[in-house]
């Protein structure tokens, strides 16, 4: 999954939703599921929004992601319902925090994963251009998203290298751990970044002409449905927050 984040290769199939719709969905889900109140109407909207990433994963035939999301969310949710009443003390508060936070963050993260997994960098850039986000923001933004999985990969590689030499957790000293892990990570990230910018410049990024893009993005029926869902939920969310 990690390697597919903002995938660079072109897929034969066009994605179901426009990148802009996906971003709107991410914002809606993150804002409402994470920060939402808990009024009567919200108890309907929140589960609905939670289900959206799952449905989208299924529609895009990302079976593994769909299963992973359903499984982990279900675990946190049922854990919260069944385990919390039967535990007590420190274990309980740990469990409450873990299940609660997990169940709250999962939908947003899943939606973000969907955005990254089904959007190519070119599509993303095309969409950003359509909403007139200046290139000064859209280029770094796409680099950021492109880079998260790289950082994780590199971190894993550094962990492997250290394990091979028998170093675990910085030998028990937390500040050593910072030094042993963060610094190699940054060195390799900077190197990768140099290569990335060399590659991007070779392909004409920042040339003084207007960029063209072969990605066809545009709104369709699915986008309309998703947008309506978003608008209704945001409207009810705000109504709940300020009027109810």
């Amino acid at each position, binding site marked *: 999954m990690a390697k597919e984040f903002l995938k660079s290769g072109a897929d034969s199939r066009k994605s179901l939703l426009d990148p802009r719709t996906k971003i709107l969905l*991410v*914002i809606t889900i*993150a*804002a409402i*599921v*994470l*920060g*939402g*109140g*808990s009024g009567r109407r919200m108890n309907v909207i929140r589960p609905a929004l939670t289900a959206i990433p799952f449905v989208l994963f299924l529609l895009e035939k990302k079976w593994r992601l769909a299963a992973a999301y359903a499984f982990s969310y279900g675990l946190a949710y049922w854990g*919260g319902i069944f385990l919390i009443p039967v535990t007590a003390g420190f274990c309980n*508060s740990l469990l*409450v*925090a*873990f*299940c*609660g*936070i997990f*169940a*709250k963050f999962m939908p*947003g993260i899943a939606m*973000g994963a969907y955005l990254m997994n089904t959007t190519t960098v070119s599509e993303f850039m095309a969409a950003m251009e359509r909403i007139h986000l200046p*290139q*000064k*923001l859209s*280029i*770094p*933004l*796409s*680099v*950021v998203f*492109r*880079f*998260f999985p790289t*950082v*994780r990969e590199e971190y894993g590689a550094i962990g492997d290298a250290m394990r091979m030499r028998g170093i675990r957790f910085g030998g028990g000293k937390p500040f050593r751990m*910072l*030094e042993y892990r*963060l*610094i190699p*990570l*940054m*060195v390799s*990230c*900077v*190197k*990768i*970044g140099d290569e*990335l*910018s060399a590659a*991007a*410049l070779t392909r004409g*990024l*920042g040339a003084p002409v207007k960029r063209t893009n072969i990605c066809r993005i545009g709104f369709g029926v699915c986008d309309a449905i998703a947008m309506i869902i978003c608008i209704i939920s945001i409207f009810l969310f705000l109504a709940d*927050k300020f009027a109810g």
Partner: protein
Amino acid sequence: MKKEGIKPKDLITVGIFTAIMFVVCMAVAMLGYMPIFIPLLTVLIPLVGGIPFMLFLTKTKKFGMVTIMSVLIGLIISLMGMGVWVILTAPVCGVLADLIFCSGGYGSVKKSILGYGVFSMWLIGNYIPIVMTRDSYFENLAQGGYGQEYAETLMRYIPDWSLLPLLAASFVFGILGALLGRAVLKKHFVRAGIA
């Protein structure tokens, strides 16, 4: 310094370091799952973030790069639903910090340390909702899955008067983080030839 616009290469550098900063911040912020660490984040994040930021500064020679980074941090943090205030505080701190760096020509040691202190103050955006809209925040935490106990403890750790101390803490530890970052820079990155 010659007057030059920001080039795509700079934009990519900004993206990379924003990603690193963000991953580092998130890794530290995961500690917040114990309430005591929430106020302590103003200590830890500036301290740890100082290392990547000081390296970032060695690659920054133009006005605007730090500003873009702060705008991105604000955008991503609010995209992930961690508070809308950051989208205001981060750019404000970013521009101020950028001005400080710029006045030092992006080379002055003192200015860069001071600037990172200012930059670190964006963190305060995460605490504003706790204090300003305390009741709804509390309710949200208690009913939204964190549990009554977590919410009550957190409220106890962050009283109303705590915004200023937190702001001060993020500034002071930003400066300490910058010092730490510079030390690390000297020890590792200059030797490795990437600073």
